[in-house]
């Protein structure tokens, strides 16, 4: 296929509204967004936010997410501990959702972003289409990790029953929320155009 990119044609398309301009124009004439052919410092920002996200994820799993005081006893739950409690009470579906959103999604997101950022600078065996697909999936599911933070917020606001039962947030709630925000910023900083800027070196699909 004969591919001509906007950059090769001396054009730049607005990242926000997709209006095409000549290169050298600083701001979009329609929506006034800053114009750049590729997101500036894309990979540096991807790595920086990703490392911040991973660092925040560690205390998020070590410290308690939720502190429950019930009739004089205090119980602290980490993220994984909370999932186990849910599974013990028989709520396997909900336990699955929380485990997926709080453990599977963040960990696979770290892996996928690292893989994407690493592979644009090196020849690799993963085809461009599958990398683009990974990027779309990760942008879509990443936000859903926030679910556990909202659970903690709701329980804290709701379960305030004096001596009978009360729920308080643990330090992990802050770390976890930060980790989700940092990884979202990391995924947004990645410019999918970088995937296509190098010729595809993977074995051709037939």
């Amino acid at each position: 296929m004969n591919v001509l990119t906007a950059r090769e044609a001396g054009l730049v398309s607005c990242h926000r509204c997709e209006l095409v301009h000549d290169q050298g124009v600083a701001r979009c004439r329609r929506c006034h967004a800053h114009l750049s052919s590729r997101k500036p410092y894309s990979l540096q920002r991807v790595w920086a936010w990703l490392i911040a996200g991973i660092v925040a994820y560690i205390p998020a799993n070590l410290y308690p997410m939720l502190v429950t005081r019930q009739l004089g006893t205090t119980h602290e739950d980490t993220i994984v501990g909370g999932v186990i409690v849910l599974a013990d009470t028989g709520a396997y579906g909900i336990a699955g959702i929380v485990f997926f959103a709080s453990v599977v999604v963040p960990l696979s997101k770290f892996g996928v972003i690292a893989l994407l950022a690493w592979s644009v600078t090196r020849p690799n065996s993963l085809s461009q289409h599958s990398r683009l697909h990974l990027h779309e999936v990760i942008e879509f599911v990443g936000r859903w990790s926030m679910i556990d933070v909202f659970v903690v917020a709701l329980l804290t606001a709701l379960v305030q029953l004096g001596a009978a039962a009360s729920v308080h947030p643990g330090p992990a709630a802050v770390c976890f929320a930060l980790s989700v925000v940092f990884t979202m910023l990391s995924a947004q900083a990645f410019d999918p155009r970088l995937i296509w800027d190098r010729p595809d070196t993977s074995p051709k699909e037939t």
Partner: protein
Amino acid sequence: MAVAGQDDDVSRSCGAGLLSRIDYLHPMTLLACPSCDMLHDVPDLPQGRRAYCLRCNHMLVSGRHTSLDRTLATGFAIAILIVFALFFPFLSIEELGFSNTTTLLGVAAAFLDGWLIPLTLAVTASIVAIPLIRVALLIYALFPIWRGRPPAPHAARAFRWSEALRPWSMAEIFVLGAAVALVKVADLATIGFGPAFWAFCAAVFIIAFERQITDAASIWSMLDNEP
């Protein structure tokens, strides 16, 4: 340059009719694929026809046409429902004679213990402030056009922000979180649903609907007349 692959859901004419000309005379029909930067010369398509990038298959033209009536109606509905949900009871709980009722603002203010305050800001922003700001920007950008007037000052900028804030509006995730929280306390205490709970659920459905019926490209072309 290539003519974008079109599709009416069944047939795809990818690769057909490749043109190798650069048409600087009609820059409005020139589109660079947002995910791979390949240039396409997109012809005016009848409504309902989509166009895809020939290289990466990213959808370039959704074939939808934004109806200002419907988009503005959903915008106003979302704003009213969220504001309503702010001031009415969201959930209530009862156990051993103790009871507690929380509003949405109570949830947002759940983390008021000193160092947890950033979390309060994040929760307030993602479930209340950002959805409301998004809708306000959308109405600001579109309402004058709907009235047949020229676009408001900075209307395009407002719409750009409304789109940029989309991933940070997390109302629907909050509703799923509420479901999880309810399961967690179901055997601990008795739960009551307040009117705000249902209003917020309705808002989430309408936000999803608004996303389905709003096509950014057609709004951009309406805003093009901005002075």
